[in-house]
């Protein structure tokens, strides 16, 4: 092997779903690779590896992010929540429950990313973040179906479960959500 191809390794720490991990990672490893290959957390999916599908979405320091384009070495010390960490004490989150109730998936491949993305999205909406279709970007947005669709456009679903996904999000965080 020529010296150019020798991997560069770095020591990092990550808190994943509440547990701290000290790891030696190849600088080329994405967060997604580390979650799946180093930590065995295979919930997050590698749909495209190019930021285009959202199947790899996790919560990174509280915000949704594509773990396929985030280099692990660049997120030393980060707190990550994956789909495996959304349930608490063995109880599914309200969003997970709503996905089941509303038939928000078929094959389930995109679902972990949808769930993490939706969790982050609802936080963003709660903080009053506007979207590209918010009528007045200066005002606090109202999370109607069109807003939900726009805000979730980074998550593709090949099975076309969008109707159920929007219904689940409407139920948990939308305009008519139960308080």
């Amino acid at each position, binding site marked *: 092997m020529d010296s*150019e*191809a*020798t*991997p*560069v390794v*770095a020591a990092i720490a990550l808190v994943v779903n509440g547990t701290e991990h000290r790891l030696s990672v*190849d*600088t*080329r490893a*994405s967060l997604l690779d580390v979650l799946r290959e180093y930590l065995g957390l295979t919930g997050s999916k590698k749909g495209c*590896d*190019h*930021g285009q599908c*959202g199947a790899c*979405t996790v919560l*990174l320091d509280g*915000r*949704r*992010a*594509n773990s396929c*384009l*985030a*280099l692990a*070495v*660049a997120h030393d010390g980060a707190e990550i929540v994956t789909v495996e960490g959304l349930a608490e004490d063995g109880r599914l989150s309200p969003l997970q429950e709503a996905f089941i109730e509303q038939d928000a998936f078929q094959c389930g491949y995109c679902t972990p990313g949808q769930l993490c*993305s939706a969790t*982050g*999205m609802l936080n*963003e909406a709660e*903080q*009053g*973040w*506007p*979207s*590209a279709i*918010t009528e*007045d*970007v*200066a005002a606090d947005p109202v999370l109607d179906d069109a807003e939900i*669709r*726009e*805000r*979730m*456009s*980074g*998550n593709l679903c090949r099975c076309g479960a969008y109707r159920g996904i929007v219904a689940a999000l409407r139920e948990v965080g939308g305009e008519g959500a139960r308080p």
Partner: protein
Amino acid sequence: MRPFAYERATSAEDALARHEDGARYLGGGTNLVDLMRLGVEEPAKLVDVTGLAHDRIERTPDGTLLVGAAVTNSDLAADRTVREEFPMLSRAVLAGASGQLRNLATVGGNLLQRTRCSYFQDASKPCNKRNPGSGCPARDGEHHNLAVLGHSDACVATHPSDMAVALAALGASVRVVGRGGERTVPLGDFHRLPGAEPQRDTVLEPGDLVTAVVVPPLRMPAAYRKVRERASFAFALVSIAAALDVRDGTVRDARLALGGVAHKPWRAGRAEDVLRGAPATEETFARAADAELAAAEPLRDNAYKVPLARNLIVRTLAELGEGS
């Protein structure tokens, strides 16, 4: 992907010192890591510049907005001042990429993202931008989404940023620190037309670090519109950032920039000249659009962009005119 060293810069000086031949600055990585995975970029070293103190949005007493290069696209779009005083900028940023990408992407990285030309992204193909002198297969190949203005024999690529189009209309400038010290480059001069050197997207020299974007206040109704192949999460076919100041039926001032049509955000100066002082009518808006687009040289498969841009200009100005 080729192995690379990774270092975290703690200040602009530190970043410059760590940057060497074959190194790249790393923002959110949403473009650079993608290109490394495709074999288009093969840096020997990444210098992470997200930890620099350039992560704030400030307002000077005269209303000028200072946006640090490490501010994320999300934080820029959600900032209260930006939403209230520069809503067109907020909207342009929100029109780009997806929620989870904007959380990673930085302002510096957004300005310096590379073209989405499919040949550029395919390391097995010739491309003058990636490999100078190898040719431009897009010119006679797949170019339906490439440039209609300002392109050259060497390259017909477009710049993909939405944010930069709004910044162009706003008359923003870019703060850069390099080996020769600090300088401020007007956004209109920051990105280049391809000419004979399409490998250079911008006027930056190797090692130059973007530290901030400076946006002067704009006190007129403004809008950002983007036409794309699907309703969301797609690059622009054509986009427009426009501002119009109409008083007593006359255009006092106008700002216009187009995205998706050229190798750089296209400030439509010819159209602005037609607009200023003219009656705020659809006829004027159409004349302005035609004046700008007279220079268009569409390729075989992208002539649709010319009427698309024209209609977008006329409609957006008409709506801005009605609102004032």
